[in-house]
């Protein structure tokens, strides 16, 4: 991976020197962690890297930097997010420089041991679940590609955890979700880490009227997560950041998968595929299924 580091730093330095960008959004590693960082032309680039802990979806930082010329490292996750954001006119694509990288599949942080020996291994069991379903390891539509392209293994099918929960009978499903939801502390990290939750004032911050109680509790938490999943219908690109950042380990992206699977099979939604698809809930077909309507 060493070469990626040098190539990346060189490429970014050139971008700054050629005055192509005002800021660069990438990953930096320090004190044992890899984390997103906003770099300027006089930042020390020595920390700039791209490794198997670069999980963050950098598109989540676009609103803060809107309007300025911005270079950013893009895995396929970011590119699909940019497509959805472009369809909703939340970014000016011409002001962005998409730096493509060969993405070696991110390691699930919960499976990292203290010495992080797993970072070297290629065992798919250690990957984040989304990476098994990844369609393209090398960033498509990148303005600038750094590093050599790598092969993309055939993507796995299906959503294992969703199918596992779904297999339970209704009472067990309710108990399982009630228990997960009782852990939720409503820190909203899942909402704020999600690049597609960019509303200036989210419904959870409303108090006139206060549709959602501020207090935690299995039902309040469940209602919050359901509404969030609805707002992502046909939009969520399954980057699984929401589940990764959850401090108490709730697999919140399962709720998103319920809708992305259903909207894909029923209405042909491939979120993030193009920069034109409108969110699922502001579209309809005359023959949408209505067997459940009296």
């Amino acid at each position, binding site marked *: 991976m060493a070469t990626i580091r040098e190539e990346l730093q060189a490429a970014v330095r050139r971008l700054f020197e050629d005055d192509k960008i005002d800021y660069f959004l990438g990953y930096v590693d320090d004190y044992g962690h890899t984390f997103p960082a906003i770099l300027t032309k006089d930042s020390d680039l020595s920390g700039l890297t791209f490794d198997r802990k670069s999980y963050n979806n950098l598109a989540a930082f676009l609103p803060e930097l809107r309007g300025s010329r911005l270079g950013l490292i893009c895995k396929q996750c970011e590119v699909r997010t940019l497509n959805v954001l472009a369809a*909703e006119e939340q970014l000016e694509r011409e002001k962005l420089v998409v730096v493509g990288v060969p993405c070696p599949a991110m390691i699930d942080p919960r499976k990292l041991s203290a010495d992080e020996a797993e970072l070297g291994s290629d065992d798919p069991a250690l990957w984040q679940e989304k990476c098994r379903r990844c369609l393209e390891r090398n960033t498509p539509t990148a303005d600038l590609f750094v590093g050599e392209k790598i092969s993309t293994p055939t993507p796995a099918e299906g959503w294992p955890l969703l199918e596992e929960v779904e297999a339970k009978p209704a009472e067990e499903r309710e108990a399982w979700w009630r228990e997960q939801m009782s852990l939720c502390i409503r820190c909203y990290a899942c909402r704020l880490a999600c690049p597609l939750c960019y*509303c*200036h004032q989210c*419904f959870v911050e*409303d108090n006139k*009227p206060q549709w959602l109680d501020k207090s935690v509790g299995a039902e309040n938490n469940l209602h919050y997560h359901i509404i969030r999943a609805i707002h992502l219908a046909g939009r969520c690109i399954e980057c699984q950041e929401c589940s990764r950042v959850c401090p108490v380990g709730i697999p919140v992206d399962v709720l998103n998968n319920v809708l992305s699977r259903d909207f894909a099979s029923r209405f042909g939604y491939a979120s993030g595929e193009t920069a034109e698809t409108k969110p699922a809930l502001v579209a309809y077909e005359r023959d949408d299924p209505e067997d459940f309507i009296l």
Partner: protein
Amino acid sequence: MARIGVFVCWCGANIASTVDVESVAEAASRLPGVAFATDYKYMCSDPGQKAILEAAQEHRLDGLVVAACSPRMHEPTFRQVAAEAGINPFRMQMANIREHCSWVHADREEATAKALDAIRMMVARVAQSEPLEPIKVPVTRRALVIGGGVAGIQAALDVADGGVETILVERTPSIGGKMAGLDETFPTLDCSQCILTPKMVDASRSEFIKLYTYCEVEKVDGSVGNFKVTLRKKAKYVNHELCNGCGDCFHKCPYKKIPSEFDYGVGNRTAIYVPFPQAVPNKPVIDRETCVFFKTGKCRACEKVCLRNAIDFEQEDEFEEIDVGAIIVATGYDILEPAEMAEFRYGAIPDVITGLQFERMSSASGPTEGKIVRPSDGEEPKVVVFVHCVGSRDENYKEYCSKICCMYNAKHAIILKHRIHDAQAYLFYIDVRAGGKGYEEFWKRACVEEGAEYLRGRVSRLYDENGKVIVEGQDTLSGEQVEVVADLVVLATAMVPAKGTEEMARILGVSTDKDGFFNEAHPKLRPVDTATGGIFLAGACQAPKDIPESVAQGSAAAAKALGLLTKEEITREPTVAVVDPFICTGCWNCVTVCPFGAPEKSEITMTIDGRKVTRPVSEINEGKCEGCGLCVASCPGNCIDQRGFSDDQVYAELGGYLERLRAALTHE
């Protein structure tokens, strides 16, 4: 704390029989925000309304809840009472304790509980109701009529009669539409030219009507009272200011063999032409497609003879933007292309023609000067077969009945008799439909006095045999297979919307039905309105129709338009959406869902951290908003709310009912 008055109505016995109105009123008086509560036998009666006015004065009420019938019944009445009592009409709500309660629940105790809940919900709702004033929208005192047929002309004349300037736009070189091409009209057989031409002349002379012929509607923006319409004035290549209509040019034009659209190909016209002698305006246009100058650059014969050098080959299409307050659509009809139906061999056999072609032949000013002839050899036909319902009432083509064919077929039979005394007419029909005034008598005259032979059955096949047209069909009354050896066959084909109707519907944002005709707002109660305010329909563009109905609809649409245009400004329901620009992120969900194009893209400039930031945000055009609330529910950030049906009101209503439950629940 609000000072709300609750008025529980007995509605005679309708409510009081199952709802304990006294206990409900007494309980209501103790609800939060209620300053006064009472019950009365007939709230909507005069004494009832007076009681409200007095109570409002005495208890300084600032909100009303009338627990009685459905708001769809008396909401306007009690809004009026509120206004008189100095209370904003939108702080009056009706609790439906009759249709939704006393009339459908027999158990007295249950009905009373439900009535109290309904009142509790409405009190909570009124407490959250902002005072609202109807939205005032200025009205442009000018009307646009699209389509210069008889319906359009009538509408334009009637609107002009009301002293309102009217723009009459017609796509072809002259107004007059289909009716101008007809000969005598049923049921009176008076010649259409004689009754239509005066109206056409009035339209061209009226000081309030501006005629735009050879002109199409390109784009329509804005909303009721304030439409902004872009017109495309097609290049005529003749300067109508200079031209005095002497006609030298089209007499001189060497190209005389161009099939005339107006005559449906029965006659021909020249490249520079006036569609028919009584055309209004009676000045020619040059058809770019068939004029040889535009192909080879030679000829220019018309230019040479024109003493007023009115010919101008350099003319371009011009665009003009006009502001109108109302639009009347009268784009008329076309006939279904018979060539699609192979069994009638239209086009293969020259002596098989359409009803409109027969009209042109029978018209004195037509290409055959009124003589009915066989297109193949020009001879007078002795045996003529008229075929009804060609393409109409047919599941393979058009399911509907085109309404006027029975009558004009009878008319054709009569005209045939008048023109060729020894001619024999055969008419294949399914049912003769003669429902209009004087229609039955007219048809009876055709088949009894004029000897037309009516054969009840459909035509199965036509074929030509040495100059004759053999018509195979069936006479279901006699059960016989029938074969008529005819000299001429006239097909009464189905009426379909005029070409370009779909395009016009898209430009106007008005929907069309399964057969492509414009959708009226309500088939029985609002036949000339559309779902879009300020756009009205007249004539066959809405459904197959005869001349009397088209004229009637023309006047009706005019009345509707005048009702709108004689006002300085119109008021619209204030229950429109409103966007909070500070929290809107410009994702345009609202723009996507709104069926009326009300949300528009605008901007807001804010200072964040000392820097000026300009952001695209949505803004609702109150003129266009119909108050459906679709955008409110599709905005993830709840940036849009709807006045009169606000989130706060729905939340309060929900809380009003369920809070009682919640309190009861927490007792356990």
